[in-house]
């Protein structure tokens, strides 16, 4: 197995699939769909292979592939896999095919399949890259398919949303690019590992100079904050997720926002521990804003997808909250490293779990939407539970998982985050609990309006229960939720050693 | 000294007469006479070759050309001479001529010219020939070329309405011959 360049295959498989689809001129819609599904499943298979070959004990990146790419810029084609990226790769592997199956009817068009594969390929590229150059390449590349997918198959306001999404994100990452240019200028290297070492012993900040380091930190922070919507920079999120077609919004919420958080964990934190510590209080406030205001804004929404968008903003803000709490606490004398590891493990777990639950919920909304002929308002349905009990059951599980009900995967992640954050900063944890309450309120309002009550709105007329392909896309997610809820050890064993090694960051240089 | 004054007076008289006369042919012929006077001045100054050249060129050739020109450009009805025009013009001419003459005379009188009464230098034709073919060989060739080109040009210009001899200018410009020379700019 060692011979096969597994990681490159993992990245290239979807792109190859996209290219193949683009070339398949005369193929019938059915074959296009199947080809697309095959390729996106191939990523899952490859991810599984990677999982098998992965040795959790080693915290350094494994299955590393490093080739010289651009000698002038000291840029290497450098792929690596450690706990964090493995979890996210698995998530992408799962969500990719599920998203495709969720929008099975639109997947009949060749371009849709190709673009979705491209999206998945770029996500994988981001998670596996260890060199800024092609990390940023995939980072930007992910926007292109997303833009077209939203624009071509989106809802009524799709064009505006697509443009806002791309321009907003690109402007953010433009700052990041400038920042990294400065880093390259100062240090001459773009490799994350080397930069992390420089960051760890503080020489990166020294090289950039005090103000320079702070500016560069801000640039990178801005780029990442826009992507993983950190609270004030999230206004593109609701409209984009609302307008995107089901499969795409599933992928966007599950994987794309995780790219931002991944960026925080992979780039921002190791490179700029001191700056992150200094600005942690502000960031904590923002994360709290995201948690609380995200939940409460969701309460106001009538469009289900916008509501879910805010819920995913809320969940992602939990991850960031944990990270910022850890960053805030680094260097404090009486710091319990156990709380820090709990918070970090919680973040990673939360990323995975939220990916599953948000994707499942969006899939359910997609089903509702398809039944109601495109309508997805809160008041357009009623008593769906009587009309489609199985569907209601599956959606219920997804809902309660994202609610954080114990026994399902959502709870474990949130419990660990709260355990960590409480240990590091009790006040913040207390306020964050409001978020939990808010999430419960709007999700239950959604459940009550749509599923409970007399049959009304779209559900009065024939509201078929969930059928083959929709079931195929929902079922694996639900099974995974329950499995991870009961036995989180499956995932945690992968990231535990990594997280404990991260605890080393806790002491400031 | 006397010869010089005599020659000068004759030449000036014939020139003035040439300029004043109404009849073109007479003025042309008188002018030829003044050119002959000049040749005489050259002879007096000792440059025979130049004198003979002067006679050969001016009296022989240029006067012929002038006469031909005068003949060819006979106006259908005799030119109505508009008195005020010529009077005014003549006045202006007088004034400017007088001014320029004054300047020359002033210059001549005031400038200390070497009044060396050196013996009249003579230059032999052989010496001239060597000079021409030596230092001024280039100039000689150029003048030769100039003459040929000028004369060819003159022929082309003065050709009658018939197409000019040889390749007509229009062909060269790729337009059907005979169309009037219209500036491409101002389309009708």
């Amino acid at each position, binding site marked *: 197995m060692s011979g096969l360049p597994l990681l490159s295959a993992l990245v290239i498989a979807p792109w190859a699939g996209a290219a193949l689809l683009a070339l398949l001129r005369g193929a019938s819609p059915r074959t296009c769909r199947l080809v697309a599904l095959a390729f996106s499943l191939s990523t899952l298979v490859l991810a599984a292979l990677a999982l098998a070959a992965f040795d959790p004990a080693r915290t350094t990146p494994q299955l590393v592939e490093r080739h010289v790419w651009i000698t002038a810029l000291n840029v290497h084609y450098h792929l690596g896999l450690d706990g964090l990226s493995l979890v996210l790769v698995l998530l992408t592997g799962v969500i990719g095919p599920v998203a495709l199956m969720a929008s099975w009817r639109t997947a009949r068009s060749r371009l849709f399949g190709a673009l979705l594969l491209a999206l998945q390929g770029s996500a994988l590229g981001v998670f596996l890259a260890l060199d800024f150059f092609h990390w940023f390449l995939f980072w930007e590349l992910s926007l292109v398919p997303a833009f077209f997918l939203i624009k071509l198959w989106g809802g009524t306001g799709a064009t505006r949303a697509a443009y806002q999404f791309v321009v907003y994100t690109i402007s953010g990452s433009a700052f990041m690019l400038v920042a990294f240019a400065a880093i390259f200028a100062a240090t001459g290297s773009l490799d994350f590992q080397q930069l992390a070492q420089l960051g760890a012993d503080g020489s990166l900040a020294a090289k950039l100079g005090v103000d320079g380091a702070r500016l560069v930190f801000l640039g990178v922070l801005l780029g990442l904050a826009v992507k993983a919507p950190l609270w004030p920079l999230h206004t593109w999120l609701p409209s984009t997720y609302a307008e995107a077609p089901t499969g795409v919004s599933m992928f966007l919420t599950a994987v794309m926002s995780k790219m931002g958080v991944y960026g925080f964990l992979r780039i921002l934190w190791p490179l700029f521990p001191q700056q992150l510590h200094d600005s942690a209080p502000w960031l904590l406030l923002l994360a709290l804003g995201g948690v609380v205001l995200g939940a409460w804004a969701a309460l106001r929404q009538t469009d289900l997808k916008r509501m879910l968008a805010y819920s995913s903003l809320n969940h992602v803000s939990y991850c960031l909250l944990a990270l910022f709490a850890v960053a805030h606490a680094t260097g404090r004398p009486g710091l319990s490293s156990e709380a820090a590891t709990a918070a970090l493990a919680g973040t990673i777990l939360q990323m995975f779990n939220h990916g599953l639950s948000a994707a499942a919920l969006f899939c359910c909304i997609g089903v509702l939407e398809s039944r109601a002929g495109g309508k997805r308002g809160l008041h357009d349905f009623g008593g769906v539970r009587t009309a489609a009990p199985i569907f209601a059951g599956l959606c219920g599980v997804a809902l309660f998982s994202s609610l954080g009900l114990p026994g399902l995967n959502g709870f474990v992640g949130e419990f660990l985050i709260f355990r960590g954050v409480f240990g590091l900063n009790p006040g913040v944890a207390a306020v964050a609990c409001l978020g939990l309450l808010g999430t419960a309120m709007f999700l239950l309002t959604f459940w009550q309006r749509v599923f409970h009550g007399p049959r009304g709105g779209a559900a009065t007329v024939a509201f078929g229960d969930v059928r083959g392909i929709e079931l195929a896309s929902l079922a694996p997610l639900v099974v995974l939720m329950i499995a991870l809820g009961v036995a989180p050890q499956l995932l945690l064993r992968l990231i535990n050693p990594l997280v404990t090694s991260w605890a080393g960051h806790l002491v400031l240089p | 000294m006397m010869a*010089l004054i005599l020659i000068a007076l004759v030449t000036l008289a014939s020139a003035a007469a040439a300029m004043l006369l109404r009849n073109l042919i007479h003025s042309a012929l008188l002018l030829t006479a003044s050119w002959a006077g000049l040749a005489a001045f050259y002879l007096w*100054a000792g440059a025979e070759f130049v004198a003979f*050249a002067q006679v050969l060129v001016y009296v022989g050739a240029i006067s012929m050309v*002038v006469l031909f020109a005068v003949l060819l450009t006979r106006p259908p009805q005799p030119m109505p001479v508009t008195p005020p025009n010529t009077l005014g013009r003549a006045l202006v*001419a007088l004034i400017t001529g007088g001014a320029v003459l004054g300047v020359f005379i002033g210059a001549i009188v005031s400038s200390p010219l070497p009044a060396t009464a050196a013996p009249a230098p003579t230059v032999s034709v052989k010496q001239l020939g060597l000079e021409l073919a030596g230092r001024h060989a280039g100039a000689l060739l150029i003048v030769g070329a100039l003459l040929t080109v000028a004369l060819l040009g003159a022929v082309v210009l003065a050709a009658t309405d018939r197409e000019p001899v040889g390749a007509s200018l229009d062909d060269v410009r790729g337009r059907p011959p005979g169309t009037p020379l219209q500036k491409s700019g101002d389309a009708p």
Partner: protein
Amino acid sequence: MSLSSLQLCLLFSSALFCLGLMAALSRSNTILVLLGVELMLNAANVNFIAFWRYGPNPEAATGVVFVLFAIAVAAAEAAVGLALVIAIYRHQKNIRLQEATRLKG
């Protein structure tokens, strides 16, 4: 008058020059204007010969050579001038210089 012969020659040439100038200015017939110009040229030749004759080193004969060339050029100029006059005549049917002012082709 204490004029030396050289100054006399110069006077002669300047007189001839001004005569040619006045002729050129006053006559409206193009040919005569050309002839006036010819006169001016000859006045210049007179100057040359005069200065050759009374100049410091006559043996160089540059004056004479120059006059020869001047005569040649004047001949060429007269030929072309008169050809032009004929061409103008063809267009204008009269050769009054004042009317030959159309600068366009």
